[in-house]
């Protein structure tokens, strides 16, 4: 009995664990070298595929809770960190070049949700050699960012904008993203990347989409004829029963007459 109880508890724990998941992705902001991949060690080990400079992986489910992160070049760990992941939340792990050494560094950003009908955008500075940057959207200042910092999500109207990073107290543009399309129902992050001689630039990655999760029921069966066929089935069955009964009683009547 106690064994059964133990099994039940273990099963319920594993089921609970299966649902307690967060989602993470890896953004590679380390220029040069082979694309690294990320290993997440928590209740279960998760490996995120290697990705090129400026690119991000798809979001991958990982157990919620405390986790150890290791950035691997081949099988060799080149950066380590630890972080906590909350159930149901999304995170971007950004691999950046350490400003003072060749070794990369991992930074973890919690990604925000999307809102139906609205466009949301935030900017993350992942360029260690850019000491400070004024971020503007169509010339309007979003904020001033140092390496590793992130601005809160802004909610401009959906549309097309020009995103730019300008040196503080100067008009020198560090990077620009003209034709930035902010789409209703999405949340996105623009990462300022570039170091070790790589051109400083923005890369945009979608964080979330406000979307229905169930397909619409846009059919009532008129083409398939389902409703009418039910009627046919019932009528056929009734006719079959009546006819069968008639034939059987007639056969019995004939038999009785013959018996007399």
């Amino acid at each position, binding site marked *: 009995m106690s064994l059964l109880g133990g099994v039940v508890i273990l099963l319920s724990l594993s089921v609970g664990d299966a649902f307690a998941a967060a989602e993470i992705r890896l953004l590679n902001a380390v220029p040069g070298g082979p694309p690294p991949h990320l290993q997440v060690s928590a209740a279960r080990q998760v490996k995120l595929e290697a990705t090129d400079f400026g690119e991000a992986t798809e979001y991958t489910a990982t157990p919620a809770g405390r986790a150890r992160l290791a950035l691997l070049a081949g099988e060799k760990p080149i950066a380590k960190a630890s972080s906590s992941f909350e159930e149901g939340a999304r995170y971007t792990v950004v691999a950046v070049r350490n400003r003072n050494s060749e070794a990369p560094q991992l930074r973890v950003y919690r990604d925000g949700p999307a809102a139906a009908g609205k466009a949301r955008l935030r900017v993350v500075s992942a360029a260690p050699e850019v000491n400070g940057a004024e971020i503007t959207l169509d010339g309007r200042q979003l904020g001033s960012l140092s390496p590793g910092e992130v601005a809160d999500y802004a909610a401009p109207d*959906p549309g097309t904008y020009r995103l730019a990073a300008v040196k503080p107290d100067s008009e020198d543009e560090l990077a620009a993203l003209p034709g930035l399309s902010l789409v209703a129902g999405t949340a996105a992050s623009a990462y300022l990347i570039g170091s070790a001689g790589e051109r400083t630039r923005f890369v945009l990655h979608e964080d979330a989409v406000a979307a229905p999760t169930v397909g619409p029921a846009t059919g009532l069966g008129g083409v398939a004829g389902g409703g009418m066929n039910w009627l*046919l089935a019932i009528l056929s069955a009734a006719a079959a029963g009546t006819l069968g009964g008639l034939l059987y009683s007639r056969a019995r009547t004939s038999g009785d007459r013959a018996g007399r």
Partner: protein
Amino acid sequence: MLAAERARLRARGRSGPGGLAGHARLGLIAAVVLPAALAGGAVLAFTAGSQAAPEASVGGSPAQLAALADLGRRPSPTWDGSHTFDARAPTVPLRPLLAEPGRAGLEPSPLEPLAGGIRPAPPQRIAIPAADLDTSIEPVGVRGGAIEVPDLGSAGWYEGGPRPGERGRAVVIGHLDARRGPGLFARVPRLPPGTLITVTDRRGEVHRFNVIGGAQVRKNRFPARYLFGGSDAPVLILVTCGGPYRQRGGYRDNILLYARGA
């Protein structure tokens, strides 16, 4: 003589070989076979009720769906069909988001909405000349996790996403059929690539799209990530029902028809 012959024949019919026994056997066989045949007919009629609706002109393989949804924007996400893609709705409250190492203490800076260029107005009508379709569009939201279904006489535009004519994937849904007979989108699953679709917005501006392909997906594994979100060009996705029909539960599938801004 005649009466005697009749009596003889009657007696033969009752007691001769194949007389009473043959008659009763025939009756019993008829009593079993005919109802069985009719019951079979009933089953066939019921089965016919579960027949498949017209399917998309282009198959709905995961690779095709990914390619359609991708539209050249980013590397195609992979879909092996083994899991759903329904994005878990983030429930965390929004708050200042900072990198874990070296928190910088940056304060959020709320931004007033900007114009962002001239957006198309919300859609008003959709026309597909090849399908003899010209109908109004009503905005629809989400209820119970699913897109609200429009009235039978109009199409529904998912107002939580982009508007037709602007960058992003605009989704318009319509009925495949009513209880009796076809619905507005009855011919949508069979529209071939290249078919022209026009959407007229509330300012009277006409946005043109060309069909590039279609896909058929299970409703219970609705691939939301391939329908909603950004794209580099204006994209219109028409959604209706498809696949086998069951009296309980309706159509099993959804048909997705992708069209790109012309």
